[in-house]
């Protein structure tokens, strides 16, 4: 197996607050890694740093063997190979669903309209959104919007897909349809890094689970191990709280 993502000694501060304090993480091709941890532990920041949406303070990152933290790297080229899906969907409200999905293939990959639309429609159909192509995002439910966001990222055929708490903004009844979509992707071998509060989902779908606490990865193990027999006191404390809150 080859490395899809490699992170060494990543530090990131926002002003005085150090959010990431030395992250080391490796994700193999076709591997699904879930990031768990309390809100504010740095999961989202880590994903945004991998996608170069936040400048980092120290450390190095490689994606598919290319060092993305090299100052001379083509940042747009890196971002095109990494897909990210946000908690708040961030669909473009002034474009139809199909336009949302085909914008980047047209503009970045210079794909012809017909080709981009064919690819977009096929992907939307695969995620049960075939009849939503011409709708505008505000006509869709949260679950549908989030699936469109996933399709929009997939339309660029990324090497790695980053999911940032993609179900946190959804009604409980809509969570399942999005998680099922992610589960399908995992089965098809999509390399993914998933920040999530859905512990049951993490246990099912992840090859590895990394527990973040205070800007560090405290524990990184197979899900069976981390959920049934965590090594660190901090991990245990977190999981106890999750169980007490009925989230597992």
């Amino acid at each position, binding site marked *: 197996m080859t490395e899809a993502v490699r992170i060494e000694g990543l530090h990131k501060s926002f002003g005085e607050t150090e959010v990431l304090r030395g992250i080391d993480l490796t994700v193999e091709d076709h591997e699904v890694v879930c990031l768990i941890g309390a809100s504010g532990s740095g999961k989202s920041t880590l994903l945004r740093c991998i*996608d170069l*949406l936040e400048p980092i303070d120290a450390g190095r990152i490689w994606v598919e063997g290319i060092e993305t933290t090299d100052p001379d790297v083509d940042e*747009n*080229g890196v*971002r*095109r*190979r*990494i*897909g*990210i899906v*946000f908690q*708040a969907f*961030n*669909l*473009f*409200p*002034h474009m139809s669903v199909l336009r949302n999905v085909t*914008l*980047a293939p047209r*503009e*970045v990959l210079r794909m012809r309209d017909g080709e981009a639309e064919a690819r977009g429609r096929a992907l939307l159909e695969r995620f049960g959104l075939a009849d939503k192509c011409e709708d505008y995002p*505000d*006509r869709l439910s949260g679950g549908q919007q989030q699936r469109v966001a996933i399709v*929009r*990222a997939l339309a*660029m055929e990324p090497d790695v897909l980053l999911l940032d708490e993609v179900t946190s903004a959804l009604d409980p009844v809509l969570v399942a349809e999005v998680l099922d979509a992610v589960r399908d992707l995992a089965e098809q071998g999509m390399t993914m890094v998933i920040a999530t509060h859905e512990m049951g989902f993490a246990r099912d779908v992840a090859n590895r689970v990394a527990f973040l606490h205070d800007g560090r990865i405290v524990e990184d193990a197979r899900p069976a191990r981390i959920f049934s027999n965590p090594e660190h006191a901090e991990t245990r404390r977190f999981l106890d709280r999750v169980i007490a809150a009925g989230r597992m």
Partner: protein
Amino acid sequence: MAEPPDALAGHGRGSRLLGSRPFLVSTVSTVVFLSVVTVIVVTSPGWPAVRESFFDPTAMKEAFFGVPEEGLPGVGQAFLLNVRIFVVAEILILVLALVVAVIRQLPGPVFFPLRLMATVYTDVVRGIPLILLIYLFGFGLPALGILGLSSQSEIVYGAAALVISYSAYVAEVYRAGIESVHPSQGAAARSLGLSRWQSMRHVVLPQAIRRVIPPLLNDFVSLQKDTALVSVLGITEAARAAQIYSAHTFNYSSFVVAAFLFILMTIPLARLTDWLIERARRRRQAGGVM
């Protein structure tokens, strides 16, 4: 409608209310209000003199068409110049202001000089009274003696001053629109591999411009009237033509004609602005319910 013509001013407000009773009430109250005002004006001691010097139908007709044999320009003909200046200036302002607004959003230290220039431009120009700017352009540029630049007609200098002045205001309107688009939209576009410019062009600007159309139109209502200011360069536009007529005949009806023409031009734009604001409000509400 079977309303008396002097109730026209209240027509829009009355008809928008649903049901016949509110409509009736608004119509009656408008008629009563206008009647009272009319009676006060018409019974005032100076009214006959005012009517003669401001509302003389013969003088109005004469002022509108002009008196060529006496060298008096027609206000109607002159007004076409205002329209032309307005249309050309408006198009140039829309483009120039957008360029300035986008420059002010350019990131990084490389673009600092450009950003600084754009900031200084909007600050300085908005600080200069428009009429002074028109004088500066109209008398300053020809005096410079620069080939090509200094040999234009006064109309070009006047229009250029309008474009430079209004672009500074409109750039700020655009900028407010750009900043009202949530940063997560830009992040989403960039995450797909779009360059900063592509993300601005396809994601940020379309949303920003849609939001600022009402304030933009408001600025253009104001621009339509300010075309009269170029008369200080000796250009015979509507206000100047009216002034020539009144200076010659000692009758001010020509000014009323000019004012009426300006109103005719601005009202459609003002109504369009209100309609767009109302439509945006309805859309937001519809979006909130869903």
